[in-house]
């Protein structure tokens, strides 16, 4: 940490707190994290922490499920409870964990990375965040209504989702629909805000091809939100009307069309996978150059392939419906479009490998999580191409093979990518360093846990074990026991992370502005960044990722000139004392 302490500016030794220049570490005014703050950095951290709490909750549900599945018989929980568990696990992990987490990262990083002082609509930003705990509570409340939570799986297919066995107007399914609709409202608010910010508020000199790859991927992802999410909202409204008022949109008994719901659902929910994973691609593109000390390989191709993924992701949804009586020509069409999307994705994977190749690697926790996420993503990509083939997909449809595949994407690539992002930007967010040893322990437990729980699901699926069952044939027991042990290990793996974050935030070493010697606007300001980020809006003169070249990124100093800013801060401090 000698580097960082050398970089500490003289004025930071002055004790007088300056509201414009937050001190490193857990802030005294932590209460602002519970307030209706409009500062994008506060909102970003609010999102991240809220999402992580729900991640723990969803993980707990998963561990109960793995506890049930450690024996072939349904003996730990009731079957209906088990149905509620997998429904809520999926819903919480997607709508309460990955989306808010992603919005948190985007909120914190996008304005800093493009040289803006805040988001375009700060108040809208705060409203979008505060909807998250609200619909989180609504969703959680469904555990306590008669009949328990929704049991129809996270995709809520009718006619199962229309059954309403208790006959109450307020039941698990209707609460689920209201929560999902509110989540949609919140996400649209976020998407309008982020797209406007990226379009309109880039610092001078930052053309589209000088934007960091993370901003590109967030932009591509939010475009998907804007186009796809309203379709899910439309489907959810119609399902809610069917459930509560007795219309017959999706009820086959009354002439409705349940497959239409599947189209509405997957038109959004498949692209939603890219909404989640694209920013993780962005995180990889940010992290690998820093820790390999090399420019991102093929920057332009990488960012353009993000947009290509956006476009293609909107025309692949029927591959979730190969077994829904879909006509043959449609199967063929969507099989090819699904295979086509692996091309831009593959381009990115090759670019990351080429970035890391021959670099001076520093295996920090962030880099380990990045590489771990990349390797699990590669594995998920291979099973993904297998699944895109209609004959194979029909064979393993609704088996654990599918469950294993998408958990490799979401828990493998996405969750590890989130961890990588948190470790990488933790010094920037808090001004403190995390403990590297705990971070590495966290990585080892996570990586082993993920492979231990999700790898056995592939042979299980090929053997024919269906998903969403509380009991199974004893011949599947061996792999299930291993998977369950992996699941518990994955639960344990969060403990060193939580310990690390809490203790580092309060008493970690001071990080300085740029502990990783990274290139990017966010690293040019102090840690944590001051209110409104930049003393002077930066003027960008170079493309990003100029590792190995001595070109400066900006032509001015976003913190203000060194001597001047130190002096003026001192004067401001003295003035503050005088007042």
């Amino acid at each position, binding site marked *: 940490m000698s580097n960082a302490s050398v970089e500490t500016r003289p004025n930071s030794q002055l004790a007088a707190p300056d509201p414009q220049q937050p001190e490193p570490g857990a802030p005294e005014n932590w209460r602002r994290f519970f307030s209706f703050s409009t500062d994008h950095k506060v909102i970003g951290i609010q999102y991240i922490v809220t999402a992580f709490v729900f991640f723990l909750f969803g993980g707990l549900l998963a561990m109960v499920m793995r506890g049930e599945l450690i024996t072939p018989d349904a003996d730990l929980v009731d079957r209906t409870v088990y149905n509620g568990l997998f429904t809520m696990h999926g819903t919480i992990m997607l709508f309460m964990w990955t989306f808010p987490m992603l919005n948190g990262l985007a909120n914190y990083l996008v304005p800093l990375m493009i040289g803006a002082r805040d988001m375009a*609509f700060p108040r809208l930003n705060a409203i979008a965040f505060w909807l998250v705990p609200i619909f989180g509570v609504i969703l959680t409340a469904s555990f306590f209504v008669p009949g328990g939570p929704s049991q129809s799986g996270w995709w809520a297919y009718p006619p199962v989702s229309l059954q309403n066995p208790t006959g109450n107007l307020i039941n698990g399914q209707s609460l689920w629909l209201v929560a999902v609709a509110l989540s949609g409202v919140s996400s649209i608010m976020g998407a309008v805000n982020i797209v406007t910010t990226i379009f*309109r508020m880039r610092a001078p000199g930052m053309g589209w091809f000088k934007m960091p790859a993370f901003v590109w991927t967030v932009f591509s992802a939010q475009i998907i939100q804007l186009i796809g999410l309203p379709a899910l909202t439309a489907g959810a409204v119609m399902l809610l009307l069917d459930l509560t008022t007795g219309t017959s949109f999706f009820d086959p008994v009354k002439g409705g069309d349940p497959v239409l719901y599947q189209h509405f659902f997957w038109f959004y929910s498949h692209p939603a996978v890219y909404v989640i994973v694209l920013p993780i691609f962005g995180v990889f593109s940010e992290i690998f150059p820093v820790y390999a000390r090399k420019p991102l390989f093929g920057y332009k191709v990488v960012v353009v392939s993000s947009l290509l993924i956006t476009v293609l992701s909107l025309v692949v949804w029927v591959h979730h419906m190969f077994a829904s009586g879909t006509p043959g020509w449609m199967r063929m069409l969507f099989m090819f479009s699904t295979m086509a999307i692996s091309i831009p994705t593959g381009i990115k994977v090759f670019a990351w490998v080429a970035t890391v190749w021959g670099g001076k690697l520093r295996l920090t926790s962030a880099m380990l999580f990045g590489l771990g996420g990349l390797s699990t993503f590669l594995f998920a990509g291979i099973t993904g191409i297998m699944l895109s083939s209609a004959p194979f997909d029909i064979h393993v449809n609704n088996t654990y093979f599918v469950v294993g595949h998408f958990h490799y994407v979401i828990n493998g690539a996405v969750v590890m990518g989130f961890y990588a992002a948190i470790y990488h930007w933790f010094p920037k967010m808090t001004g403190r360093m995390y403990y590297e040893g705990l971070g590495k322990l966290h990585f080892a437990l996570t990586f082993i846990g993920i492979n231990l729980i999700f790898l056995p699901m592939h042979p299980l699926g090929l053997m024919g074990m269906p998903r969403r069952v509380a009991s199974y044939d004893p011949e599947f027991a061996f792999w299930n026991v291993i998977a369950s042990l992996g699941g518990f290990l994955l639960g344990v793996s969060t403990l060193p992370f939580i310990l690390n974050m809490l203790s580092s935030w309060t008493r970690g070493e001071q990080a300085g502005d740029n502990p990783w010697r990274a290139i990017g606007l966010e690293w040019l300001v102090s840690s944590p960044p001051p209110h409104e980020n930049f003393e002077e809006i930066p003027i960008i003169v170079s493309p990003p990722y100029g590792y190995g070249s001595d070109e400066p990124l900006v032509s001015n100093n976003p913190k203000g000139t060194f001597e001047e800013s130190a002096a003026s801060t001192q004067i401001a401090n003295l003035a503050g004392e005088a007042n």
Partner: protein
Amino acid sequence: MSSVNVNVKPDPTLNSQAAHSHEEEDHRMFGFIVFLLSESVIFFSFFVGYIVYKTNATDWLPAGFEGLEIKEPLINTVVLVSSSFVIYFAERFLHKENLWGFRLFWLLTMAMGSFFLYGQAVEWMGLPFGFKDGVFGGTFYLLTGFHGLHVLTGVLLQGLMLGRSFLPNNYEEGEFGVEATSLFWHFVDVIWIVLFLLIYVWR
């Protein structure tokens, strides 16, 4: 500090842009357009649902129902579409700072929007089927109802803007409210044209 931060001579043209961005730029219209594009996808989804139901349903119309009357809805359509031109003139008056001309034409738009809502309500009252009568009943009331909700929102927004036009210094910070309401009104109009063609014209 890495070499990244080294000062080089500033480019004067870039600096003037930097100075410009210190002012709070107005991004509301851009954001509103993005929102409307997204909102149009909900309508698009409902339209697609309608087309799928209509082309696939075995008994589409409820028993004993011959089809929708087209005359009154056509009058309604003409009124709503013309109101888009009226609101355009209202905006023009505002740009020329003719406040009373603006208020007059703005009020006329509100009247035409209200007439549309009234006509819609009269039509609903006279129909022999309800929203539970098969997918036809469901989609008909869903589409016209969801659109009607947008018309109602538009009229309420117009009322708000009319009230605010009497506030002193209301337009000192631009005319975003009026412009956005007007754009929203055009949006509602275009949606109605598609909806009218799908529901009333397409047999």
